[in-house]
């Protein structure tokens, strides 16, 4: 029984087969920028950038090494004086809109913004028509 528990515990803590690298994280993966305003701008941007390795997480939320390297890029670029939207543009020119969580109105996405408005207008028209019929 003890042996079984031991084996079970050993399995529980076994390293995953698809090992990741053992290198230390990039300098600015976890280190905040000294300037609080710059760090706040970097943090806000990082929360709207998608981790490419661990999709559905932002790079601010992910501990994947690649997300750390992306945070490093974001922080050093912000520290060098780049505007957050320029950093986002740099990434989208490489990975497409996919890398950004910020909703953008584009040739592909405009129905997402237009349809709710149209539905509200439609519902309003129906409601108006019925109320008028009832009062008449």
């Amino acid at each position, binding site marked *: 029984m003890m042996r079984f528990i031991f084996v079970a515990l050993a399995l529980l803590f076994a390293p995953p087969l698809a090992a990741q*690298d053992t290198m230390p994280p990039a300098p600015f993966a976890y280190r905040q920028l000294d300037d609080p305003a710059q760090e706040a701008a970097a943090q806000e941007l990082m929360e709207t950038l998608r981790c490419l390795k661990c999709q559905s997480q932002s790079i601010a939320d992910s501990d994947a090494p*690649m997300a750390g390297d*992306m945070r490093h890029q974001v922080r050093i670029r912000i520290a060098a004086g780049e505007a957050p939207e320029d950093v986002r543009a740099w990434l989208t020119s*490489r990975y497409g809109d996919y890398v950004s969580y910020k909703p953008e109105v584009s040739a592909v996405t405009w129905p997402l913004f237009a349809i709710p408005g149209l539905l509200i207008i439609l519902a309003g028209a129906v409601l108006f028509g019925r109320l008028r019929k009832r009062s008449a």
Partner: protein
Amino acid sequence: MSWKVWLPLFLFAGFLGLAAYQLTQPKDDFVESRMVGEALPYFDLPPATGGVEGAATTDFQDGTPKLLNIWASWCLPCIAEAPQLERLKEAGVPIVGIAIRDRPEDVAQFLARHGNPYSRIARDDLSEVQLAIGSSGVPETFVIDGRGYIRYQHIGDIREDDVATLLGELEAAR
């Protein structure tokens, strides 16, 4: 009762059908690089281990199309593609490797165990080149033409039937 009463139900059923269909479709996790067709961004990286040469953007501007292989010794699919890289090397293709977040001793061990198909191997400890060329994982292989422009991206390990495709893309980049 007019047929219009059923309209919302039909709409709902249609939506349900669409959702069910989408659920059965395999998910495409590949993030394609938008840098295909663009010039290789500037980089100049040191060698990944002893006895190999580092790599720079200028190495891709000598008129010969090359493969740029993003890999790492800690990446399991990279072991699977090693025989295919060997075949490409035997076909006369220069392959420049970029080792992502890797230790020199691990790189040396990988090369000793799985062979060295590379003409150069650079070390990229911060995934800088990987991010600059729009690669989102290891392994990925890019065809770079003789002027240093990215022509083609292969995502994932190179399988046996991908070798001909890559040779074709290299020929087209000539």
